[in-house]
């Protein structure tokens, strides 16, 4: 389909002999917000990290199968290039502590040694921080270190850093689990705005969050993709009994 941005075909992940992600087939369209939910240890984070090839950085971690980004298998591409093209935001906000806010936003360019003029950098910083709903709060202290911001602000800084690279796809690994409720709301509001220009895949263990923010939701259980459907359908009348048990809290 013209509109597909990411497609997994018979994708499997292993930690040594441990078969953690089992035969996943999923197709994600442009400008969708996809939530990936499931109980602890179900393989959702492992699957997410397989998309931008962060999984293989762990010693002993391997995978089989294909993940197609715009039609090309990421496992046939240069791993570093794949990570460059796909943005990622982690559970704990991790701005670079030795860089200022300004430098953090353009870190993707600077650390890669890409030459960007000061004027262009200024534009990138303002644009990314605005998209991350952080510009107004920090525009007068861009030279300060990123670690002096609150948790929610740091996470939005990390989002700005990812956006600055103009990825088509941004992966979020439980982005609000380390944040308080108000910061969580501000980040969730951001998802709705980012949807216009990016495709988002969000792993979350909070199913209410999955319900609130996503267009379609994938439910993982014990390494398998059990159900992948419209969020409305998933939460009003899921097709699989395991999905129903999970969202009604019949098992943890």
């Amino acid at each position: 389909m013209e509109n597909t941005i990411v497609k997994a075909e018979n994708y499997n992940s292993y930690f040594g002999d441990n078969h953690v992600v089992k035969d996943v087939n999923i197709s994600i369209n442009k400008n969708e917000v996809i939530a990936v939910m499931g109980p602890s240890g179900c393989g959702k984070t492992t699957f997410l990290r397989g998309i931008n090839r962060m999984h293989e950085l762990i010693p002993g971690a391997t995978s089989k199968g294909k993940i197609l980004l715009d039609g090309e298998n990421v496992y046939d591409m240069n791993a570093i290039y794949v990570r460059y093209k796909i943005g990622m935001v982690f559970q704990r906000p991790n701005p670079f502590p030795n860089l200022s806010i300004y430098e953090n936003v353009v870190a993707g360019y600077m650390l890669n040694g890409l030459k960007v003029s000061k004027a262009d950098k200024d534009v990138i910083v303002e644009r990314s921080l605005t998209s991350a709903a952080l510009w107004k709060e920090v525009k007068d202290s861009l030279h300060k270190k990123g670690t002096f911001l609150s948790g929610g602000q740091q996470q939005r800084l990390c989002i700005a850093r990812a956006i600055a690279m103009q990825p088509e796809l941004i992966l979020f690994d439980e982005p609000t689990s380390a944040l308080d409720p108000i910061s969580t709301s501000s980040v969730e509001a951001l998802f709705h705005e980012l949807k216009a220009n990016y495709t988002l895949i969000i792993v979350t263990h909070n199913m209410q969050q999955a319900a609130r923010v996503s267009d379609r939701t994938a439910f993982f259980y014990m390494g398998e993709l059990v159900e992948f459907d419209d969020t409305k359908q998933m939460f009003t009348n899921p097709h699989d009994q395991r999905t129903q048990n999970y969202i009604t809290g019949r098992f943890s």
Partner: protein
Amino acid sequence: MTPLENELTALKAELASMWILVQSQLNKAKEAMVQYDKDLAREVLIKEKRVNSFELKIDRDCENIFALHCPVAIDLRFLLAALKINTNLERIGDIAAGIALYVVESSVNFDVAALEKTSLIRMYDEAINILMDTRTAFEKEDTVLARSIFKRDDVLDAINDNSPNIIAEIIKADINSLPEALYILSIIRKLERVGDQAKNIAEEIIFYIEAKILKHHESGNMQTPKEGE
């Protein structure tokens, strides 16, 4: 505005549209009855399908909001009230269709004098006003207006209580007017139910705004709040 607020605003607009539709059904049925206009009555019967599909859509939208957003406090009460108001409006729609059906099925037009004696027209007008005011109370979140509905429903109840005697007299005066008189009695009964439905709607509005439950209490009484206020 958060996505939840957007959904709730959209739901309010949908309910308002349904309200307007039901109001117009009731008005048309009255016109059809007074003018003995069978074509107008048939229009009402056709539009009844729209009322039903509105009800289904609003039910589904409420279900989605519950599932996706898990609303609490005033939002939760609003949704619970919306579900019930939805049902009440649909029943009023049914009543309007029922009245229109009588007009279509009746072979004679209704005698104006009989309509006067029974105060049917007055009752009908009051019922329409009450319905209009429930909508205003809903949109403006006006609980004073909502509370006024209870006393006005008493007027409808009074007319209803008197009607059997008056109808009996009409029939005694002229036995040929029996079918027509029975229709009139039925319409009076239906209008009394419109008043009841409107009263229920008013109770739901007060519940959602003030968290006070007025169901199953004497009309006009301000009763105990639901949770300590």
